[in-house]
């Protein structure tokens, strides 16, 4: 299958296939008969060919009972016979070009709520269609005996359906009432129950009008809205959950007797000695005891270039060890580590943020008292006018049925479902409808720099001799250091064929060394690769290539800008928003980027400072959208009015953000804002339509002219109008001709040069 899977070479160059067997075992579960099951998330599955390739490759492994791919959730469930170590799933998948990572076994429980909603929907649909059949016969003009019998059959169908399907609304209404609040479900429940109760009374007394069809088809329509709303959030949740988890699950601890044990993060105590291989994240705050390596702190501090780590360096949980193995000593438990501290700050920030009331709740807060008061006044009016209790009650209930907020209940979720779908097509996941409402109100956008405006990979910045690049890239292919990857990418871009090199050795924290035709080549730090006699070392150089200590070429690197950064910022500004950059990185790189983009900036901001700045802006009456990816952005994401994070963000940041965008392009930000604003306009239109319907229908009901037929037509009609209006939502459709990202061109146009860190 040529359509799927990146080439093996690319997969090797870009992935971190570092999941220990112990971790796999920890994440698997027993399913009986000595069979274990492991769920892997494989985001690059996207066609039938992928299914076949993956299933046949995994089925061929020894001890694998069955491998089954789920294309919708992009997951593989593997059942294997229990033994000490699991078969090499991850490596097998890597070999055929799929990057896999572990799924949280606990988070994978079958979704009960959705199943319940769909069942309720099916039952109410069945009941509504059958009852409607009987009702039509009655409206056409049935004999009294037939009518009474049909009423009874309708009652028999309606009663269980009402109990089964209606409990979704009744429960929610009851919860609200118990806490002394109202929500949209309160008038819905009252309307539906009263319609049923009155109809039952009429049936028993052989009356003419019964509203069984109205009460059940109301439930049916509302359940459609409720189910779609839930499915939208669920889909976004699974898509976000499917992304790689970056926090480590456990670590290899050296015990007192010298043996090694893989312990879960929560069991690690201060003072324990941990072995941290290259490519793993630091599990808890720690100090380096032994070894030399380089550390990627981008997610933790916003620092964009790798930092050196030697004995004595302090590390925060979440940092990534790049080159050499380290022995580290834990200085805090997981609960007291940097990550947990960020979580605590996030909770504080969330508590400080004013509670946002959703549009639908605000509407129902006004709506319910008005409706109930109208019904009461109608009852009193008819009592005074006629003195006929039965007639007054019937008409008052008819008012409640006709005002039952069916259209109002659909007005908001329908628009938000369509909007979420639009965003989904553009690779933007939204957590819930309230985020969409908040996003529409934004007037200030604050961007983080590292990982948000820039990508988390580096790019070769200077022009070099192709032969030198070819040699350097071929050496670099043996290392996972960010500089090495940048070199390998540069070679691929320039279509140079790699050399075949043997005997390459890596000195952690220094560089790579090889021998070609009797000469020693070194690629790495200038003071390591060059002879001391080499007087002049270019200060901007990231790494140098040296032949027997003589300088051959220098390579400097810069952060790769996210595609479309400039256009995105222009579009955001043209929507009337102020743009700011706020970064934890040093002043120089932040200033260079801010000046190039023409926006204001703050550099070297601590996590507390970020969240404080957002709070200050909010206090000044601004509605802030925070776009960030790092752990240090998490409190700010939680404090902001709305927040977005790229898919490459830390787990915690992704769960703190309201929206997560999967594509590299930063255009996701203006796109999401446009969709949110359009959706907001449609929601308001829909609310107006729903109110307009009531303005026409309520007087008819108050005057006592409503029959079950009129109620059915009016309610279905208004619901359909609202749904049709929701489908008009415009905004960016799926862009089939997305221009190939040209980060190089954009970056050089901005001449945004990162200075060497050392």
């Amino acid at each position, binding site marked *: 299958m040529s359509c799927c899977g990146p080439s093996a070479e690319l997969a090797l160059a870009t992935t971190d296939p570092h999941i220990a067997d112990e971790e796999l075992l920890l994440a698997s579960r*027993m*399913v009986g008969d000595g069979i274990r099951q492991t*769920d892997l998330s494989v985001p690059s599955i996207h066609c*039938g060919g992928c*299914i076949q390739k993956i299933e046949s490759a995994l089925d061929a492994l020894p001890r694998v009972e069955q491998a089954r791919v789920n*294309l*919708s959730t992009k997951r593989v469930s593997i059942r294997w016979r229990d033994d000490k170590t699991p078969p090499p799933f991850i490596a097998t998948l890597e070999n055929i070009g799929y990057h896999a990572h572990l799924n949280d076994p606990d988070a994978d429980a079958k979704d009960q709520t959705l199943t319940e909603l769909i069942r309720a929907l099916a039952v109410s649909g069945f009941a509504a269609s*059958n009852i409607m*059949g009987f009702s039509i016969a009655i409206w056409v003009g049935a004999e009294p005996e037939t009518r009474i019998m049909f009423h009874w059959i309708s009652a028999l169908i309606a009663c269980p359906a009402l109990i089964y399907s209606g409990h979704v609304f009744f429960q929610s209404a009851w919860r609200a009432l118990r806490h002394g609040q109202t929500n949209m479900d309160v008038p819905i429940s009252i309307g539906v129950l009263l319609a049923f109760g009155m109809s039952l009374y009429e049936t028993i007394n052989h009356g003419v009008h019964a509203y069984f069809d109205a009460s059940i088809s109301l439930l049916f329509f509302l359940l459609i809205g409720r189910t779609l709303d839930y499915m939208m959030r669920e889909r976004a949740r699974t898509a976000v959950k499917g992304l790689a988890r970056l926090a480590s699950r456990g670590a290899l601890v050296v015990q007192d007797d010298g043996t090694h044990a893989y312990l879960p993060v929560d069991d690690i105590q201060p003072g324990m000695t941990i072995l941290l291989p290259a490519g793993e994240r630091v599990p808890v705050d720690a100090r380096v005891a032994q070894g030399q390596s380089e550390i990627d702190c981008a997610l933790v501090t916003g620092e964009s270039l790798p930092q050196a780590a030697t004995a004595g360096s302090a590390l925060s949980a979440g940092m990534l060890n790049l080159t050499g193995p380290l022995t580290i000593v834990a200085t805090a438990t997981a609960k007291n580590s940097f990550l947990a501290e960020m979580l605590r700050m996030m909770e504080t920030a969330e508590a400080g943020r004013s509670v946002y009331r959703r549009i639908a709740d605000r509407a129902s807060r006004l709506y319910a008292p008005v409706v109930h008061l109208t019904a009461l006044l109608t009852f009193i009016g008819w009592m005074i006018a006629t003195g006929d209790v039965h007639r007054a009650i019937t008409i008052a209930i008819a008012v409640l049925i006709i005002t039952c907020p069916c259209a109002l209940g659909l007005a908001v979720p329908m628009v938000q479902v369509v909007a979420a779908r639009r965003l989904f097509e553009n690779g933007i996941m939204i957590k819930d409808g309230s985020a969409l409402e908040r996003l529409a109100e934004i007037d200030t956008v604050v961007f983080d720099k590292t990982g948000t405006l820039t990508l988390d990979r580096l790019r070769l910045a200077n022009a070099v001799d192709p032969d030198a690049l070819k040699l350097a890239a071929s050496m670099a292919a043996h290392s996972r250091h960010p500089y090495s990857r940048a070199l390998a990418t540069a070679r691929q871009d320039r279509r140079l064929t790699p050399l075949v090199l043997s005997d390459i050795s890596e000195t952690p924290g220094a560089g790579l060394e090889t021998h070609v035709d009797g000469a020693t080549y070194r690629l790495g730090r200038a003071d390591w690769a060059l002879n001391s006699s080499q007087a002049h070392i270019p200060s901007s150089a990231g790494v140098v290539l040296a032949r027997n200590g003589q300088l051959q070429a220098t390579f400097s690197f810069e952060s790769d800008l996210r595609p479309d950064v400039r256009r995105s910022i222009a579009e955001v500004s043209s929507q009337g928003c102020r743009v700011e950059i706020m970064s934890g990185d040093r002043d120089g790189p932040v200033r260079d980027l801010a000046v190039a983009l023409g926006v204001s900036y703050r550099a070297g901001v601590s996590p507390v400072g970020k969240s404080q700045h957002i709070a200050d802006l909010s206090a000044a009456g601004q509605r802030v959208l925070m776009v960030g990816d790092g752990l240090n952005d998490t409190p700010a994401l939680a404090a902001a009015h709305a927040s977005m994070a790229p898919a490459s963000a830390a787990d915690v940041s992704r769960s703190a953000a309201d929206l997560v965008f999967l594509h590299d392009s930063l255009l996701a930000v203006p796109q999401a804002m446009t969709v949110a604003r359009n959706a907001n306009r449609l929601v308001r239109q829909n609310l107006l339509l729903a109110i307009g319907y009531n303005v026409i229908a309520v007087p008819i009901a108050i005057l006592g002219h409503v029959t079950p037929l009129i109620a059915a037509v009016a309610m279905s009609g208004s619901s359909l109008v609202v749904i049709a209006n929701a489908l008009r939502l415009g905004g960016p459709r799926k862009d089939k001709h997305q221009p190939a990202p040209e980060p190089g061109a954009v970056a050089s146009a901005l001449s945004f040069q990162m200075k060497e860190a050392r």
Partner: protein
Amino acid sequence: MDYFYLIPLALVLGGLALGAFMWSMKSGQYDDLAGAAERILFEEDDRPAPDKPPRESGLSSNTN
């Protein structure tokens, strides 16, 4: 009232369809709609899903 029997018949048939839907949902047939659409094109015999789809297994227990 000659055709009265049609009413319970219609209700029973509708009820059967409802029951069939409930059953198919419970047995996991809607878990992977996109995958099912692709699998129908595979040439070799595809085995049916296991008795219970893996995710639903009631025996699951976390170890450790």
